[in-house]
């Protein structure tokens, strides 16, 4: 196997671990397939028989409600059997290693692992370890990547803006701790968005952020000027160590998305947020619940995108 452990010798997707390094055609194939699954979700019977008899294990070493639930719904709508494991409360606390846990579940005839872990690289490690017929989807690893979130965000953008080649996109907030931001930046640049901006205080930006091909802004008004898409990131309170910010009130003052700041963007700009939202910290309720917000459609599209990813992977055996 070559440099990219996600692809097989023919270039087909075996695992989805990160958007970094995936060709544009692979991303477009996932988005196009997801379009068909949106139609399935509008059927009277919201289910197709593609993954009948397959066992998908949701391996969540870190708490999550929305992501785990949408993966579960997606797998069930593909007719797979879904087993949810919240490992934080189980074997790991008894001292079992990550790979021992995986081996045991593989022995229970798992076909796919959906992995969420606080440690960057956990999903890669599992993907390298498992037998060739088992597929791994990274559902968020540390600060590294959250590829299905990045893909559902691209799907949402394409639905509302129809193309990528003429867009200006601003990602606002805690880029430093955000695996979502990293996946979004890789996806946006791969899909040909000409201008990706990040807007944040210096303390919430990785030192090498400019190397990712983005324009850096510290002033929100300048950063939002004439953008088509505003992506607000969650202020990751639970990941914050040390005093990176004076207070959440002060953060809201400078970087919280209010209707006044949103007015700097294009009039038809859409507002996105990966959730869960801290209202009054990174986003004003008037924006979150306003006419430009597509935050709830993001959640709905997340199901179709995850159905697309799982069915493409399972078909590439």
């Amino acid at each position: 196997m070559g440099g990219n452990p996600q692809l097989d010798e023919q270039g087909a997707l075996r695992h989805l671990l990160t958007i970094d390094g995936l060709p544009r055609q692979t991303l477009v194939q996932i988005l196009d397939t997801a379009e068909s699954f949106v139609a399935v979700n509008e059927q009277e019977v919201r289910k197709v028989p593609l993954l009948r008899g397959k066992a998908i294990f949701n391996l969540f070493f870190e708490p999550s409600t929305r992501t785990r639930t949408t993966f579960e719904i997606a797998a069930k709508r593909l007719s797979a059997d879904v087993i949810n494991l919240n490992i934080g409360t189980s074997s790991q606390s008894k001292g079992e290693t990550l790979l021992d846990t995986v081996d045991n579940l593989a022995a229970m005839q798992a076909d796919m692992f959906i992995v969420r872990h606080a440690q960057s690289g956990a999903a890669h490690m599992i993907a390298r370890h498992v037998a060739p017929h088992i597929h791994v989807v990274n559902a968020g690893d540390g600060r590294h990547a959250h590829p299905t979130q990045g893909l559902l965000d691209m799907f949402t953008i394409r639905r509302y803006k129809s193309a990528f080649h003429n867009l200006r996109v601003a990602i606002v907030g805690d880029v430093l701790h955000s695996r979502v931001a990293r996946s979004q930046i890789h996806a946006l640049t791969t899909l040909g968005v000409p201008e990706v901006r990040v807007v944040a205080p210096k303390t919430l930006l990785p030192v090498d952020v400019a190397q990712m091909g983005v324009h850096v802004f510290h002033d929100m008004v300048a950063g939002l000027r004439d953008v088509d898409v505003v992506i607000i990131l969650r202020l990751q309170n639970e990941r914050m160590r040390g005093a990176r910010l004076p207070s959440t009130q002060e953060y809201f003052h400078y970087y919280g998305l209010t209707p006044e700041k949103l007015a700097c963007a294009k009039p038809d700009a859409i507002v996105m947020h990966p959730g869960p939202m801290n209202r009054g910290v990174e986003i004003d309720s008037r924006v979150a619940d306003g006419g430009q917000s597509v935050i709830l459609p993001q959640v709905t599209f997340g199901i179709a995108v995850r159905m697309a990813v799982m069915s493409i992977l399972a078909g590439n055996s």
Partner: protein
Amino acid sequence: MTLPDAETLIQQLADIIRPDMTPNMVLVGMHTGGVWAAQRLHPLLDAGMPHGSLDISFYRDDFGQKGLHPTVKPTHLPFEVEDRDILLVDDVLFTGRSVRAAMNALFDYGRPQRIRLAVLIDRVEDRQLPIAADYVGAALQVPATQHIHLIQQENKTLMLKLVNL
């Protein structure tokens, strides 16, 4: 072998379908050739009849061997399937597996009153399932090493082509 003219077959199909039409009838084309054929049949039968398109990728029985088709198209059925009289249209009836998948897909949208099948070409000898068409443009014997493809030309007219596997 020479293939019949697709446009002539469309006319002939429309002629044999017309006496059986009901007020409750809807037209459903199967991606991709069947959608083109249904689009040509539609004005010849009744331009006011509801029509839609069906992609069977999620219902195919060879997913385990071949994986997901790289270009899945959205299914678009802008009418209730429940209690409808459905005329399913495909370009070539071959093994019957696509039609089996199409019927399963339709039933996930509702319980039709009736499904009838119209095809341009029937490869009668190659059936692998107990499925037959109600309306056939032409029945042909084609060597197992060849496929018949329907092609939509730039002016939207249709043409049949023989392809070696």
